[in-house]
């Protein structure tokens, strides 16, 4: 266990030290070579309300489906700066999963695109300014579905 972590660290360090220029070029190449790379959806990411964001994602009135989408969030977040979110789906042909926080100033947090062969699940962490709903939007076979769960963001004492 410990050994694995150390190996990981050393590799990351190597990458950080020696091959700076290559890394920059590499990133440029990777992110620009493939024509299929979806564009950063400015309209969706700057939406202030859920309806607006759904529309910008081409998903007006997505069907509510809490069984085919599994949204895992903590009931209480000790700190709104890190709220873990896992979304997975049992729907066939999931192409895209999008995560929103309905009371954040910009409601859309992240969008994930799943090529064939990648499992329909992702875990990430989002910021929440206050108690709010985390909303998951799933696109499968060209159709949109959504579900939501509330996360309570609490005020802390000195803590830990």
């Amino acid at each position, binding site marked *: *266990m*410990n050994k694995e*972590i150390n190996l990981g*660290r050393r590799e*990351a*360090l190597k990458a*950080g030290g020696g091959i700076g220029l290559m890394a920059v070029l590499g990133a440029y190449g990777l992110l620009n070579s493939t024509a299929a790379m979806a564009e950063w959806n400015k309209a969706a990411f700057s939406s202030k309300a859920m309806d607006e964001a759904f529309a910008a994602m081409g998903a007006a009135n997505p069907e509510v489906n809490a069984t085919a989408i599994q949204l*895992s969030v*903590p*009931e*209480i*977040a*000790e*700190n709104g*700066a*890190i709220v*873990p979110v896992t979304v997975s789906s049992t729907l066939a042909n999931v192409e895209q999963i999008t995560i929103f926080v309905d009371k954040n100033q910009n409601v859309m947090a992240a969008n994930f695109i799943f090529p064939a062969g990648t499992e329909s699940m992702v875990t990430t*962490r989002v910021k929440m300014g206050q108690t709010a709903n985390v909303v998951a939007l799933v696109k499968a076979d060209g159709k949109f579905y959504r579900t939501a*769960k509330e996360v309570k963001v*609490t*005020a*802390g*004492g*000195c*803590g*830990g």
Partner: protein
Amino acid sequence: MNISNVKKVILVLSLTASYAAVAADAAISDSDRIEQYREMISDGNPADFDEMRGEELWKKPGGPKNVSLEKCNLGKGPGVVKGAYAELPRYFKDTKKVQDLESRLLTCMTTLQGIPEADITAKPFASEKKASDISSLATYVVGQSKGIKMAVSLKHPKEKEAYEIGKRIFNYRAGPYDFACSTCHATSDVRIRMQDLPNFHVQKDAQAAFTSWPAYRVSQGLTRSFQWRLNDCFRQQRFPEPKFASEVTVDLTMFLAVSANGAEYAGPGLKR
């Protein structure tokens, strides 16, 4: 299986069970929900980056003398980092003092590398704008004790004395709020706001608390050292500021570290 393990099993079950079932279960307390949150963020600790930074600093020549810290003796011989933190604080013959990790790093940085002490102690803690070398070094060193049992010695008379003085500091009430460490940390099963408070008179609590620092603090986006932990406790206690790596901090650390003996060191941690 002890109580906390049972709790963990319940939590894992509740994580996999449906949300509705969990919400309906009145047996799940808010403390359990907080524990569930901590469990969910436990993988992927940004303290790893501070560890990496510290390792580089440890191995890279630096200071006016342009030498690395690889000859620094943290108590287990020059250059031995593995397991060193699990035995700190300890008495050091060369300085004739009991030292915690950060005061020992300070000794190495000043003597081996020739860095003026004031350059280090002026800003010993990381801030949003600037990382702290001594703090990153500490994060690296503690990471090398992960999984090793805490075994802080009280054999040397000076170690014993530091422990005894530390205990007195722990119970010392002063300031506008009349607070001592013991005001919040000598009773079991109480919390401040939503956070459970460790009772340092209970070994299990003391072990869990001590072995999870240093830690990445989510609220600050920074990895925090044990000296910082004490510094911020005193701030919230409404005390004046303890001088960095001073005897008051080392002796208090000694008292807390000894009460955590026997537990596997588990840091760097990840905290709210």
